[in-house]
């Protein structure tokens, strides 16, 4: 079975632009979460979605938004990009929104802001 897939794998943007990152969860998984990982740090939680509803939000500004589609895939949108948004953006999926089960991660989108 395919794992979590993310696209694109790499992206270069300039300050002020917006970006859309995409994620397809593992088949049968209904929950998708987004994380930001800055070089040398652990992943920081941004959002969790389950059944198209937002179930959790981390400490990120309103420039960050996301949604989940009926097929459980998800998009992360970031507006008015800043240099500090340069990071690896990870998507993770799990079967349900129960917090006592592991999430499975994709290989991420490397976003560079110039």
């Amino acid at each position, binding site marked *: 079975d395919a794992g979590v897939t993310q696209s694109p794998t790499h992206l270069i943007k300039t300050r002020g632009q917006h970006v859309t990152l995409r994620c397809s969860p593992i088949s049968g998984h209904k929950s998708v979460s987004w994380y930001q990982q800055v070089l040398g740090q*652990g992943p920081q939680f941004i959002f969790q979605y389950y059944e198209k509803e937002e*179930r959790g939000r981390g400490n990120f500004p309103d420039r960050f938004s996301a949604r989940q589609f009926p097929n459980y895939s998800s998009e992360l949108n970031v507006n008015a990009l800043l240099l500090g948004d340069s990071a690896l953006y990870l998507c993770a999926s799990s079967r349900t929104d129960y917090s*006592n089960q592991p999430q499975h991660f994709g290989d991420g989108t490397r976003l560079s802001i110039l």
Partner: protein
Amino acid sequence: GESVGLHLPTLSVQEGDNSIINCAYSNSASDYFIWYKQESGKGPQFIIDIRSNMDKRQGQRVTVLLNKTVKHLSLQIAATQPGDSAVYFCADLDSGGSYIPTFGRGTSLIVHP
């Protein structure tokens, strides 16, 4: 949220040795813990998890130990191989609270052949 930290940022071992990676957590309500392995250019890969009603769990070549009294967990890797070289993260969650797993900075494991 509460922070999860790792004691050692880098651990160097010889191939064939056993490795122990430590992790401290601060949220006393955390009851579910996960270890992830992240290789260069890849996303974190699930290794093993443990719930707070256990103090030890074994997988293939890996063992996780949980000490709730001192809020500490460790990952033991037996007969470490060069392919084990990666950054290892622990994460903790409060399954009765909000679903926001907290990751530490990670420990870089370097295995010398």
